[in-house]
C-alpha cells in the first residue's frame, strides 16, 4: 500500500492534522548575514506520518518524516520525532523512540552516509540440518516447505479423540512462541490459526513478564489490566514505584509524575534493591532486598489497620472486607487450611464465604465480626511489625517509616496514591501474591477507580496488553475465556455450565464464546465448532517453562517464533538453548538475526568457562531445520497496538519494507492459506478445524486490515456471511447469530470507522467540572472506551466524587455521567439495588481483599526458592504451592552467597534484538555490566570496569563490573547480605553484544501462572 493511500486514510480517520511545535514569540526576526549560511529545514513542507513507538507499553506517538521520492530499497527516512499531538507524550520521546530511524536506516560511522541498517534481513533464509550457514531462499519455497513440515508434524502427532473418548483435536508436538510486539490484527490471525491447528503449547512474552499481574488483579478487581493510564498519573498525590525502574523502563511516566509534582506537590517513593535513575528523581528512596515485597507491603497493611488509616467508607462498600468467611478457613505457620503436601496444593473449598439461606453473602457492615475479612486480615498481618519487616527486607527502619507515613496518608478520602510496578514485582515465585498485596493495599486506602490512583502494571512491550487480550497463551481464549480442558469441558454445554458464574458481568460469557466460535468457524453452529478447539489435558502445564522442559525432553517437533528471543530472554537460557536443538524444525519471524534464530551457530556455543550443565550442541550435531522469515518494522506496515493503559492506537505506514521483508499479517495469512490448500479435500474429521475455518481476508497476500478489524469488533452473521457490525459487546448473542474475534475489543469498529484511528486530542470536559485527561476522542480504549476502570469507586456510596477536583464520573440523579465512560450500569441508582457494587466483573461485585489463589486467600511472605535467609515469619522454605522442576539445581548460600537479580536499562529493550542492532542505542550502552557495591567489589578484589564471571548452578556469564555506591549490602536479620544485578539484554549479535544474563536464572515459577523467577536467586561473582 502506498504512503499516499495511508495518508488519505489518516485524514479520513483522523480529523486533526499534525501540529508542529512552534514558538510564537520568535516569529518575525530579521534576516541577518548568518541566516544565509544556515541550512534549510530538512523536513520543510513534508507531512509526517504518525506511528506509535514499538518499544515499551506506554504507547507514545511518533511522527515519521519520509522522503517519498526515494526508491523503496534506499534510505527514505528524514527524521522520526515525538508526535506533538499524542496526549501521552506530547512530542517527547526517550532514546529508543528517538532512535526509531535506526530500525530501518543508519548513518555510516566511517563515511557519515545514510544507508539501510545492514542488520536488517532482506531475504528469507534457510538453515539445513547439520549446517553452519544460512542459504537465501525465495518466499514461495519457504512457505511451501513450512506448510508441509507443519502438516507432516500435525498429522503424525494429532489427537482427535483422547483415551476417554472425548473429542480433543489437539497437536502437542508444535509450539508457538511470541507476539507481544505484533499488531492486534496480527495477533488475532495467529491466535485463530494456532487454535485451528490444534496447538496447545501456545505461549508468548506475557507469560514471562506480566502473567502474575493478571493472576493477581483479576481475582481482586475482576480484570487483569492496568487500572489507570499514563496521562492520569498527573493527578496523583503520591506515587509508590516498587518493582519498577519506571524512569528507565517507562520513561514517559516521568513526564506525568513531574507534572504531578509541579502542580500537586506530589511525592514520589521508590522502593528498589538498587539506587536507579528512578531513585535519583524520587523524594524517598527505600532499599529492599529482592523477593521481599510481601513483607514490605504486609508491614504497610498492618500499619494501616493498626492505626485505622484505611478509607473506611470505601472499604465498607466497595470491598469484601465485610464478608464473613467460613469456619474451615484457618492459617498456621505459613500454611492455610486444606494443604496437601503430596500434591503441593490446597483444597480451596476450605476458604469459602458464609452464605445466607437466600444465596447472598453473609456480611457484617460494622466490620467487627472476628470472622469478617477485615478482622481476619488484621490478624493475618499482625505478625508483620516494623522490626520484623525491616529484618527481612533490609530496609533501614527510618526509611521504612518515611514510606509508611507518606504513602498511608493517601487513605484520606481526598487524597489519592498510585502504585506503579513492573517485573521487579511480577517475576517471582510469589509474583501473583506480590501483585495481590499491592491491590489489597490500594483497596484499603481507597485508591482504586480514582484519577491519580490505581494499581498500574506497567507493561513492557508495545502490544503485550493486546497480545494478552488475544490470548497468545495456553490457558485462555481471546477475551479471557479459559481454554477447554478435556474432562472438565468435554462439550459446549459442559463448558458453559462450568465456566459461567451466576453473578457479575461474566454471566454473559456464553455470548462471548459463541461469538468467538462463529468468528473462527462462521458456517458452523458453536455447539459443533466448540469441538474444533483444541482441548488440553486437564491440569497439564503448557506454560513457558513447561514448554521448554517438554522441548528439552524431545517432546516437541516444531516451533514457531514470532519476534521472541528465548536464548537471551528465557529463564535458564542454557537449558532453553539446548532444548531448541531437539526440534525437528523451527520457523523464526523477525527483523533481525536474533540469537534464537541462530542458536545453531558456532557463536552460540561460546561460554566463559567449560562448564556445561545442559549439553549445548555444536552446529554439526544439530539436526534442526531453521526457516527464517524477515518481517518488516512497525512503520513499514499498518495496524493497531494496545498500550498498557488499554488505548488501542493506529500506526500508519510511512516507508517501504526493507528488501523482501513482509508484515507478519501477510506472512500468517499466506501461510494459513497454504495450509488450508494442503488440507483441501480431506474428509477426515480431524481436519475439519482447518477445512471449516473461516479465512477470507482479501486477495493477493495483502490482507485488508479493515476486514480484520470488523471481525474483531464483531457483526451479525447473515446467511453464514458477515452482516452489519454490532455496536459493542452488549449486542453479542449466545445462539450463533453474532461473530466476534474478541469481545473486549467489541466497540472498536462499530459502524464505518475504526475508532483506533481517531486523532482528536481535545480533552472532554463535562460542564461544571475539570477535564481529567481522559481524551475520549483520541484512539479507542477497551472496555468500551473507559479510560479508568472501576470508576464507580471514584464516588461516595451516594454517587458524588470523593474529590471534585479530580472528578471522573458521578450520579446526576438520573444517570452516571462525567469525564469518563462509567464502568457501571449507566442508570443504576447508587441508592438502589446493586448501586454500590462497584466491581462489576467479580462474582462478588466488590473488590476482593480475600480471594482464592493457589497459595492462599491472603499473601504470606515466602523466601525465594534460592534465598540467603530463612523465613522469619514461618517455617516454609519457599512458596508451598510451586512446582519444583529441577530440585538438584537449587543453589545454597554455601556455594552461592550473593543474591542475584536481572534488570533493564532505558537504552535497551527486552532481549535486545530491537536495540542492540541499532547504532544510536548501542553507543549509549555498548556492553553488558554487573552492578555491585563497593564493599563487595573490595571483598572480591574487583575493580570498576573489570571483567567478571557470575555463576549459579545453571551456568556462568561474563560481563564488565560496574562498581557503584548505588548498591549497598543489606542488613538482614543482623547479617550483611550482598546483592548484585545485571542487564539481561545482551546476546552475541548486534552492534552491542555480550552474554545473556539468563544463563544464570532458574527454571522455577509462580504457583498460579508459572511466571519465572528472574529477580531473586543465588550466585557468586569473581574476576574473570
Amino acid at each position, binding site marked *: 500500500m502506498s504512503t499516499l493511500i495511508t495518508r488519505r486514510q489518516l485524514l479520513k480517520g483522523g480529523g486533526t492534522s499534525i501540529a*508542529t511545535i512552534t514558538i510564537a*514569540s520568535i516569529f518575525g526576526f530579521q534576516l541577518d548575514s548568518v541566516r544565509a549560511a544556515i541550512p534549510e529545514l530538512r523536513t520543510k513542507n513534508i507531512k509526517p506520518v504518525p506511528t506509535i513507538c514499538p518499544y515499551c507499553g506506554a504507547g507514545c506517538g511518533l511522527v515519521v518524516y519520509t522522503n517519498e521520492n526515494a526508491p523503496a530499497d534506499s534510505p527514505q527516512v528524514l527524521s522520526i520525532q515525538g508526535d506533538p499531538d499524542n496526549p501521552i507524550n506530547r512530542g517527547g520521546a526517550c532514546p529508543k523512540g528517538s532512535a526509531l530511524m535506526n530500525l530501518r536506516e543508519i548513518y555510516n*560511522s566511517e563515511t557519515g552516509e545514510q544507508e539501510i541498517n545492514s542488520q536488517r534481513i532482506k531475504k528469507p533464509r534457510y538453515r539445513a540440518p547439520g549446517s553452519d550457514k544460512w542459504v537465501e531462499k525465495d518466499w514461495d519455497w519457504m512457505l511451501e516447505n513450512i506448510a508441509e513440515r507443519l502438516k507432516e508434524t500435525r498429522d503424525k502427532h494429532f489427537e482427535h479423540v483422547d483415551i476417554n473418548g472425548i473429542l480433543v483435536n489437539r497437536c502437542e508436538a508444535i509450539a508457538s512462541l511470541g507476539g507481544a510486539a505484533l499488531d492486534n490484527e496480527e495477533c488475532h490471525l495467529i491466535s485463530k490459526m494456532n487454535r485451528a491447528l490444534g496447538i496447545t503449547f501456545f505461549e508468548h512474552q506475557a507469560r514471562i513478564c506480566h502473567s502474575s499481574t493478571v493472576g493477581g488483579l483479576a481475582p481482586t478487581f475482576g480484570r487483569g489490566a492496568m487500572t489507570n493510564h499514563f496521562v492520569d498519573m498527573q493527578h496523583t498525590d503520591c506515587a509508590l514505584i516498587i518493582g519498577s525502574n519506571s524512569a528507565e523502563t517507562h520513561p514517559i511516566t*516521568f513526564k506525568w509524575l*513531574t507534572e504531578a509534582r509541579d502542580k500537586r506537590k506530589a511525592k514520589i517513593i521508590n522502593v528498589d534493591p538498587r539506587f536507579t535513575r528512578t531513585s535519583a528523581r524520587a523524594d524517598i528512596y527505600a532499599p529492599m532486598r529482592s523477593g521481599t515485597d510481601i513483607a514490605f507491603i504486609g508491614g504497610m497493611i498492618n500499619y494501616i489497620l493498626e492505626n485505622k488509616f484505611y478509607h473506611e467508607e470505601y472499604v465498607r462498600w466497595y470491598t469484601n472486607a465485610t464478608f464473613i468467611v467460613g469456619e474451615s478457613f484457618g492459617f498456621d505457620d505459613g500454611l492455610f487450611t486444606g494443604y496437601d503436601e503430596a500434591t503441593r496444593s490446597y483444597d480451596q473449598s476450605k476458604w469459602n464465604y458464609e452464605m445466607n439461606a437466600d444465596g447472598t453473602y453473609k456480611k457484617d457492615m460494622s466490620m467487627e465480626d472476628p470472622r469478617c475479612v477485615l478482622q481476619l486480615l488484621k490478624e493475618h498481618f499482625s505478625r508483620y511489625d516494623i522490626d520484623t519487616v525491616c529484618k527481612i527486607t533490609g530496609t533501614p527502619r527510618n526509611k521504612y517509616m518515611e514510606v509508611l507515613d507518606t504513602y498511608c496518608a493517601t487513605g484520606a478520602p481526598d487524597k489519592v496514591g498510585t502504585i506503579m510496578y513492573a517485573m521487579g514485582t511480577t517475576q517471582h515465585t510469589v509474583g501473583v501474591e506480590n501483585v495481590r498485596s499491592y491491590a489489597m493495599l490500594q483497596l484499603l486506602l481507597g485508591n482504586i477507580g480514582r484519577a491519580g490512583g490505581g494499581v498500574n502494571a506497567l507493561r513492557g512491550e508495545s502490544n503485550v496488553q493486546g497480545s494478552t487480550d488475544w490470548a497468545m497463551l495456553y490457558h485462555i481464549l481471546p477475551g479471557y475465556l479459559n481454554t477447554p480442558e478435556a474432562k472438565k469441558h468435554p462439550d459446549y454445554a459442559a463448558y458453559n455450565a462450568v465456566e459461567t458464574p451466576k453473578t457479575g458481568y461474566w454471566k454473559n460469557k456464553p455470548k462471548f464464546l459463541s461469538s468467538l466460535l462463529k468468528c473462527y468457524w462462521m458456517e458452523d453452529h458453536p455447539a459443533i465448532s466448540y469441538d474444533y478447539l483444541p482441548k488440553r489435558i486437564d491440569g497439564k502445564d503448557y506454560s513457558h517453562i513447561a514448554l521448554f522442559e517438554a522441548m528439552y525432553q524431545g517432546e516437541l517437533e516444531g516451533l514457531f517464533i514470532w519476534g521472541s528471543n528465548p536464548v537471551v530472554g528465557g529463564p535458564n537460557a542454557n537449558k532453553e538453548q539446548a532444548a531448541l536443538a531437539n526440534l525437528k524444525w523451527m520457523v523464526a519471524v523477525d527483523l533481525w538475526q536474533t540469537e534464537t534464530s541462530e542458536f545453531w551457530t558456532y557463536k552460540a556455543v561460546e561460554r566463559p568457562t567449560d562448564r556445561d550443565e545442559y549439553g549445548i550442541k555444536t552446529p554439526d550435531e544439530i539436526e534442526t531445520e531453521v526457516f527464517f522469515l524477515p518481517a518488516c518494522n512497525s512503520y513499514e506496515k499498518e495496524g493497531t497496538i494496545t498500550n498498557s493503559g488499554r488505548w488501542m492506537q493506529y500506526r500508519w505506514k510511512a516507508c517501504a519494507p526493507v528488501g523482501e521483508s513482509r508484515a507478519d499479517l501477510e506472512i500468517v495469512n499466506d501461510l494459513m492459506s497454504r495450509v488450508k490448500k494442503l488440507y483441501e479435500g480431506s474428509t477426515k474429521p480431524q481436519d475439519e478445524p482447518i477445512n471449516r475455518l473461516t479465512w477470507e481476508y482479501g486477495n493477493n497476500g495483502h490482507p485488508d486490515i479493515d476486514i480484520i478489524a470488523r471481525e474483531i469488533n464483531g457483526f451479525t452473521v447473515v446467511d453464514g456471511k458477515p452482516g452489519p457490525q454490532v455496536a459493542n459487546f452488549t449486542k453479542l448473542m449466545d445462539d450463533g447469530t453474532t461473530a466476534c474475534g474478541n469481545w473486549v475489543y467489541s466497540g472498536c469498529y462499530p459502524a464505518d470507522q475504526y475508532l483506533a484511528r481517531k486523532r482528536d486530542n481535545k480533552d472532554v470536559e463535562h460542564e461544571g467540572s475539570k477535564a481529567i485527561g481522559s481524551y475520549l476522542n483520541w484512539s479507542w480504549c477497551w472496555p468500551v472506551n473507559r479510560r479508568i476502570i472501576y470508576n464507580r469507586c471514584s464516588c461516595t456510596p451516594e454517587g458524588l466524587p470523593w474529590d471534585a477536583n479530580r472528578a471522573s464520573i458521578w450520579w446526576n440523579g438520573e444517570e452516571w455521567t462525567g469525564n469518563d465512560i462509567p464502568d457501571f450500569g449507566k442508570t443504576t441508582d447508587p441508592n438502589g439495588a446493586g448501586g454500590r457494587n462497584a466491581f462489576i466483573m467479580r462474582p462478588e461485585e466488590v473488590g476482593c481483599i480475600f480471594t482464592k489463589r493457589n497459595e492462599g486467600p491472603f499473601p504470606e511472605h515466602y523466601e525465594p526458592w534460592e534465598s540467603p535467609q530463612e523465613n522469619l515469619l514461618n517455617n516454609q522454605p519457599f512458596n508451598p504451592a510451586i512446582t519444583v522442576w529441577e530440585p538438584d539445581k537449587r543453589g545454597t548460600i554455601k556455594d552461592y552467597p550473593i543474591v542475584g537479580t536481572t534488570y533493564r536499562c532505558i537504552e535497551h529493550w527486552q532481549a535486545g534484538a530491537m536495540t542492540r542492532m541499532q547504532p544510536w542505542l548501542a553507543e*549509549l550502552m555498548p556492553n553488558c555490566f554487573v552492578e555491585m557495591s563497593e564493599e563487595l567489589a573490595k571483598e572480591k578484589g574487583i575493580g570498576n570496569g573489570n571483567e567478571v564471571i557470575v555463576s549459579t548452578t545453571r551456568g556462568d556469564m561474563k560481563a564488565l563490573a*560496574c562498581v557503584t*555506591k548505588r548498591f549497598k549490602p543489606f542488613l538482614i536479620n543482623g547479617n550483611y547480605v550482598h546483592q548484585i544485578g545485571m542487564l539481561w539484554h545482551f546476546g552475541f549479535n548486534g552492534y*552491542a553484544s555480550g552474554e545473556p544474563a539468563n544463563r544464570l536464572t532458574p527454571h522455577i515459577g509462580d504457583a498460579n501462572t508459572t511466571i519465572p523467577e528472574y529477580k531473586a536467586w543465588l550466585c557468586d561473582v569473581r574476576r574473570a
Partner: protein
Amino acid sequence: MARMTNLYDVSKCTACRGCQVACKDWNQLPAVIEPFKGNYQTHEDTNGDTFTIVKFMEGEDPVDGVYWNFLKYQCMHCFDPACMSVCPQGAYSKTSWGATFHDPDKCIGCQYCTYACPFEIPKYRKREDKITKCTLCVDRVEEGLTPACARTCPTGALTFGDRDELLQIAEERVKFLRANGFPRATIYGKLELGGLNKLFVLTDTPDKFELPIDPKVPGQITFWQDWIQPYFGWLIPVALAGSAVSFVTTRILANKNGDHTEGGHE
C-alpha cells in the same frame, strides 16, 4: 531580537538521553561506539559526531546519602564566544537570537576554537577535516521549531524559549528547590563568562555537575585574540605549515592535557 535559549533543569532530568539521540537524528550524526568503562556515561566527552552528551556523576553525602547527578552537556552559546574570537576564518558568528553558529564551509579544521573554548566544546571531525558542535538547531529555530533535544525531552527538564522568561522561571525554581531539600541549588549560565545562551537549574554547586565554578577563557587565548590574531591572522596558513607562530599554538596546546594534539577524538 530577544535571545532564545534552552533552560535545563537537572532536578527534572532522568538522564534518559533521549536528547542525545534526537540530536543525532536531527543533525544526521553517526554513532560513535566506545566500550563501557564502569559508568553509564559511555562518552567521556562530546566528539565530532556527538554534539551533546549526558554526564553521570555519583557520590555520597554524609547527611543525604547517595546521589546521582546528571548533566546534559553541549555548547553553551556564550554571549561573547572565545571560539568566535580566535577563529582565523570567521567561521563563527552569532545569530540575532543568540546561537553561536559555526559555518562548516568556512572552517579549515585548524582547531584553534577547540583550545580556546572554556568548555572544550568544538570537536574535530576527521572525515571532513572540519570542526563540529551543537548548532542550537538553528535550522529548526529559524523555522519556528524548538531544538531537537528540547522537543524530545520527555520530562520537561529541557525547554526552549525566550531567555528572559526562562531566567525568571529558573529563579523561581531555584527558590523552590532551596526551600525543598536542596539548599545549594543555583542557576548556571546567567552571569558566567558574561552570560551563556544556555541556562541551567542545578540542585547543587556547579562542581557537583562537573561545571567550572568560574569559567575563564585561557590566558594565552586572550593574549592570542587581543594581540597576535589581529596582526598575524594572515600568517595562519603559514602557521598551519608549522612555522612562524607555531610557538604560540604549541603553548596553547601544552596548556591542555593530552589527546587533543591528535586532532580531537573520534
